[in-house]
């Protein structure tokens, strides 16, 4: 009897060659979007009240009729404050000169003008929002200089406060 042994030898050869297939690696792309800045509109106007021809009148930033804004943004972030300041108030065709001194604006992280820090509104300021509330307050005063023959009337002009994140 012839015994035939048949042994099937299956060789499983692992593909150990340097892989021809792609190898991948992942990282993450990340970003943190900050709370948008909001600046109040018409919170309080800068009101010189009654002004007499030929007599200059000043309002301090700490006065009750100074201009006032509230600002809210991301906690503790730095912002630039800048003003667009008028040269005149206007009533019809009549102009009433207005000026702003080096300490006619102020800021604070709370609504406490008595503790505010003064700055030149023409230069602006760079400061940090409150770390706990993200708030800041700004005030502005100024001086009007009516001419001796200044026509009577109600004179107005816009004062604009711009606030932007610096990235810090």
């Amino acid at each position, binding site marked *: *009897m*012839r*015994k*035939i*042994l*048949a*042994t*099937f*030898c*299956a*060789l*499983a*050869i692992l*593909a*150990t*060659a*340097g*892989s*021809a*297939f*792609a*190898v*991948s*690696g*992942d*990282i*993450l*792309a*990340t*970003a*943190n*979007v*900050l*709370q*948008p800045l909001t600046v109040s509109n018409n919170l309080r106007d800068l009101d010189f009240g009654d002004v007499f021809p030929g007599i200059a009148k000043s309002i301090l930033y700490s006065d009750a009729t100074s201009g006032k804004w509230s600002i809210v943004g*991301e906690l503790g*972030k730095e912002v630039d404050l800048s003003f667009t300041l008028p040269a005149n108030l206007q009533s019809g065709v009549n102009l009433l000169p207005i000026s702003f001194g080096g300490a006619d604006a102020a800021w604070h992280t709370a609504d406490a003008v008595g503790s505010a820090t003064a700055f030149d509104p023409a230069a602006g300021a760079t400061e940090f929002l409150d770390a706990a509330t993200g708030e800041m307050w700004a005030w502005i005063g100024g001086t009007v200089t009516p001419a001796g023959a200044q026509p009577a009337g109600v004179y107005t002009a816009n004062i604009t406060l711009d606030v*932007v*994140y610096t*990235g810090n």
Partner: protein
Amino acid sequence: MIALGISCFCTDARAQIDLDPPSAQKKAGPAVRVTPQRDLQFGDVIPGVETTVDHSDPNSGMWGLKAANESIIDIRFTALPPALNGTGDSMPVRFESTQAIVIIQQLGTSYVFDPAVGITVQVGKPGRALVFLGGIASPRGDQSAGSYVSPVTLDAEYASSAGGPPM
């Protein structure tokens, strides 16, 4: 007493089946390795203001590559995200043609490339390279505040035009 002898005429026939040709049984070279090393971090982003990270910035994305000495490898980004995802919102991002670079270590050479296209390079000895990726985040003016994230995938393989991995 009967001695029984059994004679066995045996034909030992082994059918040996080779599943792979002999050439595949040679000692193989190393596989390409891709090691993520740093996330691409745009950091604080202001709504309505684009933020750009260059490949040379310290917060650019980074991978390490390791391949066989002096081999040629294809480098591709197979998953460049069109946006980062936040909670209930997404923020567009894009990757411009000069915002990726590969640095061939030991050779000191570098190649800026378009991350949308990829690049084929030859590494030195040892076969190490670094890949850096920048990008541009474009938050809308009304972008919701918060964290945004998305994966970025880098692929690397031996270039097929070089006949496969070196042995």
